[in-house]
């Protein structure tokens, strides 16, 4: 491996350069020189956890009877929908993790207002019944509606005006006065969500009219076609709240044969046509439903988008001041600790100690690069785990140097001593580090299962530290030592290696 130490040195220096580049940048971009399109364009800003930046942690749990089970697919879908929903809050780096069997942990670094987040998380998705006329857009299309726009009534619904002038002229005055509170959130959601998903979902520029929203529904359930007296298969029966039944009766009466689209968070999920006037506030949705697809639509109608209803079981807000104080101090403490260790290594192990210090610096640079690239959200225990892994990185070097000394005392040449010392130390380094990695893995699983992000963060940084330290101990220290020995004559300077004439 180190037959050609200078080749390895070049690779190490390249890696170090890459690490420095990533460590010092907030954003890395690589462009294809031919057509100038970005190949890599990533935000590599160091992500600080809740405890360091301050913010809010919310633990959500499926709101179901205790004996029912939650499928992991449902939990994953719920998490994805919640993620989209909170993206509308304009909080960056929201960390959301599902914690099986029935929990989701959400972290909002830098957020001050817990009420706003909890409300956004618990609110069901925006379900709209939209007038598509004769030409409905395809299922899955993202559309725009007039719900909650200027000119809407107190419930967010726009009353169609024959001239259309009301909407056009009243924009400057009306937005401020008439936008009701219920419309504020949907507006925010629709403004923020298209950005990340815009490329994947077809969109239309038409603004459709919203007839009513999910809040008009009193109850929704799945029936067999026979029970409903219509056709075979399954149908969805719904009941409207009393104050909506006349509005709906008027609308359906005037639009028989037209399409009434069901739209969830501005995305079309179903496009049934109106067969007859629905005048008693009760109706059914027919289609070629299987039991599963009928259930799915019914769940969407009932809970908005969430396949499983969730409740907030724990919310923890961390003051940013506490975090900022701790970060500052712990950072200084870490630097003091590192300097003390560097000094100790040079004083005790002389030249090899200096070489190990260089390796240690490369170790720190590479670890930081990995934290930024993966990315690892750094928390206080995470930093503690990193500092502990520095100790283990030093340990690997100490093991090698103690062996090196022994071999030198036994009268071997320096080159032999390095190879032998390294080979003998390797076994203990390997076994010791594998056992640490085993502990990390179990910690990680524990942290993941119970949503204990503290434990998880600690195990991740410790594991990365152990892996990188293996690399620096095996490759970097050894290569550096070989290069040093090409230029230093050990027999002339035994003291540089901490060997006195007497002890030889």
């Amino acid at each position, binding site marked *: 491996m180190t037959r050609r130490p200078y080749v390895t040195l070049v690779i190490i220096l390249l890696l170090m350069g890459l690490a420095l580049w990533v460590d010092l940048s907030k954003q890395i971009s690589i462009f294809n020189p031919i057509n100038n399109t970005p190949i890599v364009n990533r935000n590599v800003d160091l992500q600080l956890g809740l*405890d360091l930046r301050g913010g809010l942690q919310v633990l959500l749990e499926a709101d179901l009877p205790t004996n029912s089970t939650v499928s992991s697919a449902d939990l994953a879908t719920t998490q994805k929908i919640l993620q989209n929903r909170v993206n509308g809050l304009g909080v960056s780096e929201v960390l959301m993790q599902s914690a099986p069997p029935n929990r989701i942990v959400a972290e909002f670094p830098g957020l001050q207002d817990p009420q706003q987040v909890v409300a956004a998380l618990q609110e069901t998705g925006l379900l709209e019944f939209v007038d598509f006329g004769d030409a409905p857009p395809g299922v899955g299309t993202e559309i725009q509606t007039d719900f909650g726009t200027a000119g809407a009534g107190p419930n967010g619904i726009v009353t169609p005006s024959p001239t259309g002038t009301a909407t056009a002229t009243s924009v400057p005055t009306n937005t401020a006065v008439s936008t009701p509170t219920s419309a504020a959130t949907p507006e925010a959601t629709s403004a923020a969500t298209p950005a990340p998903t815009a490329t994947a979902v077809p969109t239309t520029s038409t603004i459709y009219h919203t007839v009513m929203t999910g809040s008009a529904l009193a109850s929704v359930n799945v029936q067999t076609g026979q029970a409903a007296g219509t056709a075979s298969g399954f149908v969805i029966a719904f009941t409207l709240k009393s104050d909506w039944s006349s509005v709906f009766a008027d609308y359906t009466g005037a639009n028989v044969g037209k399409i009434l689209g069901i739209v969830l968070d501005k995305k079309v999920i179903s496009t049934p046509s109106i067969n007859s006037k629905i005048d008693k506030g009760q109706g059914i949705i027919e289609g070629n439903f299987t039991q599963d697809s009928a259930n799915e639509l019914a769940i969407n109608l009932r809970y908005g988008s969430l396949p499983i209803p969730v409740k907030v079981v*724990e*919310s*923890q*807000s*961390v*003051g940013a*001041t*506490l975090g900022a*104080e*701790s970060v*500052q*101090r*712990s950072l*200084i*403490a*870490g630097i*003091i*600790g*590192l300097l*003390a*260790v560097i000094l*100790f*290594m040079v004083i*005790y192990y002389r030249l090899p100690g200096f070489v190990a210090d260089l390796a240690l610096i490369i170790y720190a640079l590479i670890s930081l690069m990995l934290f930024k690239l993966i990315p690892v959200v750094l928390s*206080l*225990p995470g930093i*503690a785990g990193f*500092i*502990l892994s520095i*100790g*283990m990185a*030093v*340990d690997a070097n*100490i*093991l090698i140097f*103690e062996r090196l000394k*022994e071999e030198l005392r036994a009268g071997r040449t320096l080159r032999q001593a390095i190879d032998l010392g390294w080979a*003998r130390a390797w*076994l*203990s380094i390997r*076994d*010791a*580090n*594998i*056992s*640490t990695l*085993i*502990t*990390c893995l*179990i*910690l990680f*699983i*524990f942290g993941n299962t*119970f949503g*204990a992000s*503290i*434990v998880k963060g*600690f195990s991740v940084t*410790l594991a990365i530290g152990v892996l990188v330290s293996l690399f620096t101990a095996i490759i970097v220290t050894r290569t550096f030592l070989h290069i040093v020995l090409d230029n230093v004559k050990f027999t002339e300077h035994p003291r540089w290696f901490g060997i006195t004439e007497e002890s030889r």
Partner: protein
Amino acid sequence: MNLIKYRYLYFAISLLVIIPGILALIIWKLPLGIDFTGGSLLEVKFASGNPPTIAQVESVYNGISSPAFKIANPLVQPLGTDSLSIRSEAMDDATKAKVVAALQQQYSEGKDVTILNFTQVSAAVGQEVTRGAAIAVGLASLAILIYIWFAFRKVKNAYRFGVAAVIATVHDALVVLGIGAILGHFLGWQVDSLFLTALLTVIGFSVHDTIVVFDRIRENSNIYRRVEFEKVVNHSVVQTLDRSINTQLTVMITLLALALFGGQSIRHFVIILLVGVFSGTFSSIFNASPILVVWENKEWRNWFRRKPETV
């Protein structure tokens, strides 16, 4: 240097720490924090730099306590010079607002009272975390035992190395738990998820340390095949002594820097780690290796027999 000769002295030193620790665990129990028991943690900062006394905070809490949220008799701890950490039975946001308003009104001295941290943990979460942690520790011990057994499979009685390493690990876990109970009783420290992290780290470190010493024994047993096992073990421990002490020094240097200059919120965590790391090094040199010797000589057959001297 014959270190192994005094093995029963080392065992005695360990027991001298562990037995009081176990007694503390039995009598005072572990001071479980709200991570485990459920409840509310409120941390408030007084810009005046002059927070109310513990008795004053208690009277505020006792006054606001209601049948729905019985927050009377909270545990109050100072945080630095201007902040308080107050633990109580669970309360809701409205009750918290009442508490903070009362503190603002009575003890702010005209300056701001800010909430640094407000945590709600339901007891159910706590129980699951505890159970999960216990399972994690058990699994980790088992996995490490199996790994060592595998890594030392070419040595005679390889399983003994695994068992000895796990005993040393249990030793360190007991030291940490016992010290936790003692510090909890006298200084009011609470066992939280950070304590759990520290405990699990100590277990990892302990095994790390033990394996390095065992690795030497493994190597030396192959070189000195005809030498008495006890002497091989002693030779190995002495050979690795420099490394053990130096490694411990570097880890303790960084931890000490964190304890002295690091943030208040991780100080207990770091101190528990310091205790555990020290115990980890001690147990790998003075417990794990001597246990191998005791086992090899089957010395327990002589424990209750009258005899003039130890070999």
